[in-house]
């Protein structure tokens, strides 16, 4: 970083000096009356031409220098399968685009220098050249086709339907924090929700008339996800727009009130693995908000903990269900499910942990929970 500042300051200083020197030269020229330029040629014409060359040289140094200095602070290689594909695609595209960036800018500045006003020279009358124009219409078109194709393939794969074995986790944005909800310690199916059921305790509006909801649990400081298999985030917002952003996984999707969205990905580096890799024992994956949502927009941090399957399962089974935390909500459970709900209450901690979930019709719909209709049914 110090290098960046140093380099840019240098560029800055040198160019400032050049400009001042040029200015003095112009003043001198005017005073001594040696200026021979015709009236229509602006003062300091050749100086400006020279500055384009200087600018070119210093920007090449600046771009390369700052890039090298900045690179160490870029995000580490993506910790998800699609993320690494996007990284490759990004740097490939950047590489392709660096060519026109350098060539066109260089030619622009070089031509400015080379074809500066010279007394007696007449510019070339060159209004068109169809062949040239066709060539430089076709080349960008072909390059674009290539980029579109690779981008489209990646996009289609990333936005395809999540695999059936995906771990489904709900994440809800509100001003100003995230709340995650898991399918539960037993049935691993998310129950229904309804925004009208939201209150100070039931922050995501869990609908306890749905059998699947009974063992759901929530967390509003950290999200645990298993490594090595697909994770499907079901995303919604409670009040205004938010956007789920996990920079290290290259995951982003808006959270929209009234319109559930989703994003699936395969995290494949546990927190411990990446800590070892980066040599930073305090490293944590993070989840941020990237859609302006009000005063606390800049501070909606949630820790992301990626674990191997076994420790993830263990963590899930140790969580306190919503009913366990707030037993008074038992009142909201319909009578026919009360007996089932009893085992998730704190008074009954010895309930068998692997009670099979009965298959009911509500279960199917509740587990899917997609579409605005799910909550207002």
């Amino acid at each position: 970083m110090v290098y960046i500042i140093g380099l840019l300051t240098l560029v800055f200083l040198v160019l400032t000096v050049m400009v001042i020197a040029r200015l003095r030269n112009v003043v001198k020229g005017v005073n001594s009356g040696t200026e021979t330029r015709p009236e229509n040629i602006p003062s300091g014409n050749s100086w400006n031409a020279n500055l384009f060359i200087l600018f070119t040289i210093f920007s090449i140094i600046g771009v390369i220098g700052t890039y090298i200095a900045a690179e160490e602070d870029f995000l580490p290689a993506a910790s998800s399968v699609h993320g690494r594909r996007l990284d490759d695609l990004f740097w490939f595209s950047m590489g392709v685009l660096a060519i026109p960036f350098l060539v066109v800018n260089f030619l622009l500045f070089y031509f400015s220098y080379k074809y500066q006003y010279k007394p007696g020279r007449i510019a070339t009358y060159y209004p068109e050249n169809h062949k040239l124009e066709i060539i430089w219409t076709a080349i960008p078109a072909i390059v674009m086709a290539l980029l579109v194709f690779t981008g489209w393939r990646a996009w289609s794969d990333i936005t395809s339907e999540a695999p059936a074995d995906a771990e489904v986790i709900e994440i809800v944005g509100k001003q100003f924090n995230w709340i995650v909800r898991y399918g539960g310690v037993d049935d691993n199916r998310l129950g229904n929700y309804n925004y009208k059921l939201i209150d100070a305790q039931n922050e995501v509006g869990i609908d306890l008339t749905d059998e699947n909801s009974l063992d759901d649990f929530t967390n509003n400081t950290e999200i645990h996800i298993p490594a090595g298999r697909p994770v499907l985030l079901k995303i919604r917002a409670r009040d205004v727009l938010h956007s789920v952003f996990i920079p290290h996984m290259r995951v982003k999707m808006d959270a929209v009130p009234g319109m559930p969205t989703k994003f699936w990905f395969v995290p494949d580096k546990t927190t411990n693995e990446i800590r070892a890799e980066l040599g930073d024992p305090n490293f944590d994956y993070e989840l941020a908000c990237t859609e302006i949502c009000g005063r606390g927009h800049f501070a909606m941090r949630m820790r992301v903990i990626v674990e191997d399957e076994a420790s993830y399962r263990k963590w899930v089974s140790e969580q306190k269900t919503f009913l366990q935390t707030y037993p008074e909500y038992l009142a909201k459970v319909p009578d026919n499910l009360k007996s089932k709900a009893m085992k998730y209450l704190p008074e009954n901690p010895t309930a068998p942990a692997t009670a099979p979930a009965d298959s009911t019709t509500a279960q199917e719909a509740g587990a899917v929970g997609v579409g605005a209709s799910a909550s207002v049914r």
Partner: protein
Amino acid sequence: MSSLETGIDITKVHDDDHAHHEELSFWRKYVFSEDHKVIAKQYLITGIFWSIIGLGMSVIFRLQLGFPGIDMSWMRPILGQWLDETGKLDPNFYLALVTMHGTIMVFFVLTAGLSGTFSNFLIPLQIGARDMASGFLNMLSYWFFFIAGVVMFISLFIQTGPASGGWVVYPPLSALPQAMPGSGLGMSLWLVSMALFIVSQLLGGINYITTVINLRTRGMSFNRLPLTIWAFFITAILGLISFPVLFSAALLLIFDRQFGTSFYLSEIYINGEALPNVGGSPILYQHLFWFLGHPEVYIVLLPALGITSEIIATNSRKPIFGYRAMIASIIGIAFLAFIVWAHHMFVSGMNPFLGSVFMFLTLIIAVPSAVKAFNYTTTLWRGNIRFTPAMLFSIGLVSLFVTGGLTGIILGNSALDIQLHDTYFVVAHFHIVMGAASAFGLFAGVYHWFPKMFGRMMNTTMGQIHFWATFIGVYLVFFPLHYTGIAGFPRRYYTFTSYEFTKSFTDLNAFVTIAAIFTFIAQFLFLYNFFYSIFKGKKASKNPWQSNTLEWTTPVVPGHGNWPGEIPAVYRWPYDYSKPGAKEDFIPQTVPHSQTPESNLPHENEEIAIEKDIEAQNFNDQFRNAH
């Protein structure tokens, strides 16, 4: 406004034709004027006023970003309650600043200030018309803009602050006053102001289009129009089609805010209360907004590109390369501008299939844009370049257009946009390609047409220093932001101290802030040069740049009606620079081919035959002379 009036004082130089004309009162002449040149200057001065406010705001929030928690107590006289006891900027006000900066710069400076100024000033002068088709509508257009500005200005000073939901003002944040203070009265004023602004744009746009179609002088066929006029013409069409959609978006938002409708609201629980609204969609607003919002980018940029085409050709002393290709690319860009809006919404939750379609359409825009960049570069090739400040800014514009345009290809790729959406990569991209490039077009235009506006020259050396300071400054500010974008830094963050992954780049952010202050200060050089030259600049000659277009055939300061006597007829395209065989290195559009046998190309000799026909028509000057 005093400077404005003085600038126009020069127009008192009247021709004999005018002698019989009744003097207009002060108010009709300088304030509620129907003269396109006065209206253009009104737009320009108003635009400059707003740009100082808009850029000043960016310096304030850049200070917060570069030096988090910096003590701003010295600004308490301006910021007042928006600083806490320790002088730190309030996070809500940070968002208000970001929002107002965007709104002001995009709409008031780069739309009204650029397009309003130069469309008004140049269309009648370059097509050979006495004035706009409707001077009255033109006057209304300015005053609607003025009132829009007054409303927006008032909103800066109210208790709850101005609108703060980002310049896109996405609901529900902008629809619910309980979501943030800025969504209260400030947001209402924002909507009122924008509605008035849209009316202004529509009145202006109708006028530009009508004028270009109907009031061209004899011989000024569409294939002899300067590229500036092509750009303004297409821009006006873009605005006319897209601004009403923003109007409807704003109207529905007003309904949601005031009348309890649910166009954009659904299933919301906020401040301990579940709202009754169901069935609305925030995504609908985004579609409507970006249906304007994306063409808006080109509404801002195309006039700048048109101005650049004219200036590069004049100062390279060469015809613009590929005149027809340039027109085709303007039309192509304008057409595509309408069908790419959803690339702003790849991760909004809309159907991914739409994402594929919009990615494809978006990347097509790169093709006409590339053609333009190549054509500018080729125009420089083997020219005889004069580095006037206008020329320097035009070259700078092309560089920025290329640099910023290329990162657009990354962002237009829906897959890559997943990571980069709403990060500083986007900020860097659009500030370079749309903000800075268009601003460079504005500067170029002012430097180039200042002699025609005020009859005096701006100081060249000062203009050149202004260019270099701005050009270097803009790159120093925005180029490093790509790096923070690649590192995942999200936009519109009050501070980067809440996350581990944004803990880096602190000195880079400080550097960017310093560069931004430097660039901001450099603009005062321009302000000084501009206002000083209005009064004290060197007297201009009739055609100081030896340019071909019609405006340089008017008197040094054109009076009401622009040309004393008949409007000149046009016989050739505007880019006959350095024609082989010609006596001088430029041939104005008013010179018939019959007078230049030495330089005529074979097909041009055929055009001598139709010169009589051109002279015979006088459809477009209802007055036959200046009235």
